[in-house]
Structures are given as C-alpha cells and as structure tokens.
C-alpha cells in the first residue's frame, strides 16, 4: 500500500476538488444575484447530486472490476447484462398496469425498491439458469443477456405503442434517468446498501487476486471458483441495479475506469484497484457532468462517457497482440 499512497492522495485531492467545483462553481460563472435561501437550496441539491454520483460510481467501478476478474477478461462490463432495458421495462409496466397516479410509480421509495427488485430477480434467475446448466459459461450468459435486453426493449416499445399519450410521456421522462433529474430521496436508501455491498466485495479481495491467475490455477490454490463466481454475480446484480436506478445506464464507465486504474497502479491487487478505480470513476463522472453543464453541450454525461469509454476500448483491442 505504501508505494501507492502518493497516487491515492493525488486522486483523492482531485476527487475533492471535483466535488467542490461541482457544488460551488455555478455560483461564480452564473448569475450571482440570488437570495441566501435560493443559494442554500441549490447547494444542497448539488450536494445530493454529488453523493448520488459517488455512490453510483463506486458501485459501478467495483462491480466492473470483479466482473472482469471472474470472466478473466478486461474488455467486459456487467452493464452488458441489460440492466437498462429491464429498468425501462419496469417503469413502463408499472405505469401500464397501475397508471401514472399509483403509489407504486409515484412514490420514489416504492419505485426504487420495485425496479431494483425486478432487475435483481431477472439477472439472478438468468445466472442460475445458465450457470447451472453450462457450468461456467459467462460468455453465454452475456450473449443471452444482450438478446434478452433486445427482447425486453422490443416488448416495452410494443406496450408503449398501445399506451395512451399521457402515460407515454410519463414513461419517457421516467426512463430518461440522468444526473439532472436524479431522485434525491432514494440516496438514503442507496448509501447503506452500497456500504454493505462494498464490504462484501472487499471481503473477497484475496479470492479475486487468486482468481486473476485463471480458473485452473485458482482451483489448484484452493479457491472454490464456481461458488465465488456465483456469489460475485449476485453482488454485481445488486450493485448494478442500484446504480442504474440512481443515475441511469452508463455502459462504458466501469470499463474505462477499471482499465485506467490497472494502467496507473500496475498491480493485480484488488484492494488497490478497487479504491483506485472508484476514485477515478468519481472524478470522471463528476467532472464530466460539470464540464457538460459549464460548456452547455446539451449531451447527457452518460453519452459522453460512453463515447470516451468506447474509444478507449477500441484502443485496448487494437493494442492487443495478434491471437492473444
């Protein structure tokens, strides 16, 4: 840990700077003639944005890291399992079945719990079905996940097609989760869940270190590989469900930050990369959102990060040695 402390403190300072900039910069660049109470309410709202982004960033970074470890592949991310499609489908069905005024939809707590529960339920039944059937074929799982998300989004579009226009408008605004219209109330629900999940991931860090060596080696060294894989998949499902419900789908954030952390820290120790990639994810997300606000680009930060992450992925692929 000692030799990384410099890097960590640098990243930490950057993260704190990003926080402060995000919370206060708008005041200096915008119109300064506002009342005290308006100032306070904006600051508190932006503070909750930062917290939501932090929670989501940490969950995405850590779950992407462990996902890459159990798949033994640096180019994959758990977002490919189709959480966003399930999320939008849940919102659509809630409105379609119960209407826009029902508590299930309009109460943020119920809505958050129901959406997370559905996402977790679908991904877990998928895991147990596929991983039980074909031992440890995570690639099959991913492909099935992608196909099912196409399936779900087609069914969702069909339902939206036969909905009445008012309900459709509500669905569209509910499914465009973004940092601007984040639901601040559910943060208090998400924080304790995040702490528990990170604790569980952290507890497994030494297993993950061993699993980096590949399944054969890990099993030889006494790791119950399949059990750990399943266990990790469950944690990942929870983490991704919470992150998606909080700030919406960001496919490439995990891919980008975990790989950056690997390059910066040049280590295989998961405790180091967990912390490093979480910090990088926070910085990327908060700064990205800040830049977009300041430059008024009119593009959601999620799209921007997907673009950067995607370009980085192409670079990673291109750099690979032939038939590696």
């Amino acid at each position, binding site marked *: 840990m000692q030799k990384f402390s410099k890097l960590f403190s640098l990243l930490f300072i950057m993260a704190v700077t990003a926080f402060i900039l995000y919370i206060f910069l708008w005041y200096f660049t915008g119109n300064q003639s506002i009342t005290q109470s308006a100032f306070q309410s904006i600051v508190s709202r932006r503070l909750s944005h930062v917290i939501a982004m932090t929670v989501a960033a940490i969950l995405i970074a850590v779950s992407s890291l462990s996902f890459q470890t159990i798949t033994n592949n640096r180019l994959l991310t758990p977002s490919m399992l189709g959480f966003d499609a399930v999320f939008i489908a849940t919102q659509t069905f809630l409105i379609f079945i119960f209407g826009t005024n029902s508590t299930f939809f309009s109460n943020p707590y119920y809505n958050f719990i129901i959406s997370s529960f559905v996402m977790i339920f679908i991904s877990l039944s998928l895991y147990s079905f596929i991983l039980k059937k074909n031992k440890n074929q995570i690639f099959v799982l991913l492909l099935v996940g992608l*196909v099912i998300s196409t399936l779900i989004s087609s069914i969702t579009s069909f339902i939206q097609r036969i909905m009445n226009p008012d309900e459709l408008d509500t669905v569209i605004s509910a499914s465009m989760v973004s940092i601007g219209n984040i639901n601040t109330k559910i943060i208090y629900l998400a924080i304790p869940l995040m702490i528990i999940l990170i604790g569980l991931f952290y507890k497994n860090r030494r297993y993950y270190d061993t699993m980096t060596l590949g399944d054969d080696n890990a099993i030889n060294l006494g790791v119950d590989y399949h059990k750990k894989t399943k266990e990790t998949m469950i944690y990942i499902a929870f983490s991704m469900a919470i992150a998606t419900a909080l700030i919406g789908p960001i496919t490439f954030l995990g891919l980008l930050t975990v790989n950056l952390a690997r390059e910066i820290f040049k280590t295989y120790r998961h405790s180091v990369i967990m912390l490093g990639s979480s910090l990088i994810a926070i910085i990327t997300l908060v700064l990205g959102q800040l830049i977009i606000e300041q430059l008024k680009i*009119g593009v959601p930060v999620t799209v921007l990060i*997907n673009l950067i992450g995607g370009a980085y992925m*192409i670079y990673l692929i291109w750099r690979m040695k032939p038939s590696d």
Partner: protein
Amino acid sequence: MKKLNYRRWLLVILFIAFFIMSIFIGVSKEMTIERLLSGDKRAWLILTESRWPRTMAIVLSASALSISGLIMQAISRNKYVSPSTSGTTDAAMLGILLSYLVLGSSSTLGRFIFAFIFAFISSFFFMKFISRLKHRDVIYIPLMGIMYGGILSAFATMIALSSDSMDLINQLTHGQFTTITKDNYYLLLIVIIPLVVAIFYANKFSLVSAGKDFAVNLGVNYNFVLTLGVLIVSLVSATTFITVGPLPFIGLIIPNIMSSLYGDNVGKTIIDVGLFGAVFVLINDIISRLIIYPSEISISLTMGIIGAFIFLILIFKGGRHAKV
C-alpha cells in the same frame, strides 16, 4: 438429394403463399382478386403503387440480409456473426446521419454512398480485429461486435444530440415497410447485384469457411474472397438500412436454422437461406400489420420479439452441441 429437393419445394410453396397473402392484406377493402380480375383501376393502382413495392421490398431486403449473414458467418468462421452483431448496421446508421448533416436531407444517393462507405470500413476493421483473436471463445466475437456497435451508436447519438437531429435517429432505428412506395423501392433493386455475385461465388465462400490454409491450398485467392464478402455485406446493409431500416436478428437466425437442416455448405444452402429469410420476414410483416389492425407496429418490434426467442433457442441448442 431427394430430401433436399422436397424441402426446397416446400419452401417455394410457402414463399408463394405468403407472398400472395402479403399482397392482399391491408386496410383498403377495394383491393381484392375479383376487382383485379375485372380490371378495376383503383385496385390496380393500389397494387402497383403500394402493395407490390412493399412485398417486393420485404422479399429483397429479407433475402439479401439473410444471405449476407450467411456470408459473414462463412468468412468470419463464426456462427454468431452477422451485420447486426458486428457493428455494420450501426456504422451504416452513423453514415446516414453524417450525410444528412453534410449534404442535407434531399440526396438519397449521397445517403447511400455515406452508409456504404461507413459500413465497408467498419466491417473491414471488424474482420481485421477478429483475425487477431482466432483462438477465442465463439461467443466472445459477437459480444465484442455488439459492444463495438454500441460505441458507434453512442457516437451517432452524441452527434444527433448536439445537432438537434435525435428525431432522425429514432426514425432510422425503427424498421418500416409502411413507407415503401413505388418511388422509393427502386433503391432496393441495387441489392440484386451483390446477391447475384454472392450466389456466383458461394462455393468460394464455403472453402474460405474451412480455414485460410485449406482455402489457399485449394487455390482460392483468400484475401480477394474475404474483401468481396465484406463488400457484399456492406452494400446490402447500407441499401436495406436506407430503405427499410434495421431488421434485427435476421442475418443471425436464418443461416443458423438452415445450417442445422442442411449443413455448412454455403454453395448448397444459399438459395434456401434467401427463400427462408423472405418467408420469415413476410410472416413477421403480416403479424405486425394485423396485431393492432387497422394500425400497424414497426417490423423491428415484431422481429425483435420473435427473433430473440428463436435466437435464445439456438444459443441453448448450440451450447448442448458443444458439450457433446
């Protein structure tokens, strides 16, 4: 050989049956066989202006896409590669979007050229990438292809958002046969050229699918056939994308179903693949027209749902095969 003929005849009969059904299904009650026979002007007008172009568009695009899926699977030697799982479709979309921004909305030829160039460059890049990772898992390659397509469409979304053309993207990503009329289906006739070339070179493609060394030993100009394949696929993808839009899963499932019946010989199956693809899309189109009659849903939805189910079955069957 006899069995093959019997099956092919069955396909031809199915094809003719659904072709006729497709022509006579529609909102207008004036379009019946009796009226056509009695020389009713209005009935003939509907036939030549709308029904015939629509049905022909379905047949042409469906068979062309199925055959290009077959070719792509042969040259990449992977059962799960198709224009929609290798970024080709997304590249075509990006090209169309750029042509709108550069050339304005009027020029169909410009759109076609842009879509074609983008699809070609992108498929070529993807083929190069595949050849770099020969010894990977079969499912890994389509996964990478879908991710790569995701990057391209994130890029397209970004451009669309910053240039206020998000409507265009929404319109482009929904396959429609509704808008096909006598005036715009002529562009689809372009696909006849690559189709003829594909059938002419079918045997070469099946030699290439047996491996580079094998094909070169038998005197095949490997790189030429590979480039030709990519050329055919990009031409078909660009043309169909402009006229009808994306038809999900077709290039993937049709060749797979056919090869489970007839084996992997491209030369023997290419005609059946084209016919079966046409039958499949005709059925899907009839369903989309009837399900909320008199209005209709996008063919992308119907095919997204039905295709996803079939593809899931194929994946699980494939998994069982591989185990034995």
